[in-house]
């Protein structure tokens, strides 16, 4: 196997594509000068020929249409996913505010309940105090109230006399 730069370059070109007429001429000239490389080149060229003759892989006639349909389906699915994501994002954006509102409302209700409870407790205490007072006389005591009041009118103090006496 020769490592001559020209032969190497032309051989590597032949792997990728058919040599041009000028390149073929160069190669023939080189092979004429190096006949020991002829057999090796023949095999290489044979392989190039065989690989070049490999037919294209079978492909459906509607391949492009199917790709475009698949792309459209993907785009529609992505659009639906984005809508759900946006709705969720919107919901999540309101969630903290809703949480704060819930906390404030809860605190308010709790405070109201505590105030109400405190009032009830105070009322209960008042009732307890009153219930400890000894029993009052019955209404019979007030039966002759007007007559007694007329007999012993309450005198108000003679403030003028008191002032003169000072």
């Amino acid at each position: 196997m020769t490592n001559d730069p020209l032969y190497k370059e032309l051989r590597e070109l032949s792997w990728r594509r058919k040599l041009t007429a000028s390149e073929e001429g160069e190669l023939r000239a080189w092979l004429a000068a190096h006949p020991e490389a002829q057999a090796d080149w023949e095999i290489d060229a044979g392989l190039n020929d065989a690989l070049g003759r490999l037919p294209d892989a079978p492909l459906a006639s509607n391949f492009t249409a199917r790709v475009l349909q698949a792309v459209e389906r993907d785009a529609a699915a992505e659009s639906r996913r984005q809508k759900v994501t946006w709705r969720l994002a919107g919901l999540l954006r309101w969630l903290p505010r809703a949480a704060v509102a819930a906390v404030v409302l809860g605190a308010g209700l709790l405070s109201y309940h505590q105030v109400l409870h405190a009032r009830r407790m105070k009322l209960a205490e008042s009732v307890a105090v009153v219930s400890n007072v000894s029993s009052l006389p019955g209404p019979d005591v007030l039966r002759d109230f007007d007559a007694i009041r007329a007999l012993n009118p309450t005198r108000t103090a003679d403030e003028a006399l008191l002032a003169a006496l000072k």
Partner: protein
Amino acid sequence: MAFPVFAKLLANMSVELDPDAALMLRVKQGESGAFAELVDKYKQPVMNVAYRMLRDATEAEDLAQNVFIQVHKSAQRYEVASKFSTWLFTIARNLCLNEIRRRSRHLTSSLDAPHPDHEDQPLHQFEDIKTASPPESLLHGELEAKITQVLGELPENQRLAIVLCRQEELSYEEIAKVLGCSVSATKSLIHRGRETLKEKLKPYLRTGQWQDSK
């Protein structure tokens, strides 16, 4: 101030040199017609790569479709840094290798396992290609089958290098970019793969066409 203008000018120059990149930029802007044009142009080359790598026409077609779907999905990230074909075949290579590795993870049958119905025969039988020189009337279809078989037995990286080498629009530099290695490493892969192919296909290869007639 001048740099963005210069960069845009450079990008435009690159686009002028690569018409496929110009199409891809139109795809980026949402033009489905430009995308269809690219698919039409590259569907066969991509399918050829997928078929030679996966050795199954149905799976290869599915994979080829996925390559273009991936191209469309990645359109917004496409930059005119290299030729479109280099980018396209890089996607094809990645999907092919992923599929081959996925298959190898699920492959559990032994190559030496006996056939369940005929215990004296192996489950997997492989044709012995080291035969005597075939007659010159060997049908081309049989040679194609031989090449396909031997090509399929090459290591993945050598097989892919040789298959990409057949894509005339790719230079060795671009093939190296697709494979993710240097140009010299790429040529070495191709050389080693070809040596194996020549050894196994020698009796079937046409020779004598380059001999000087005297």
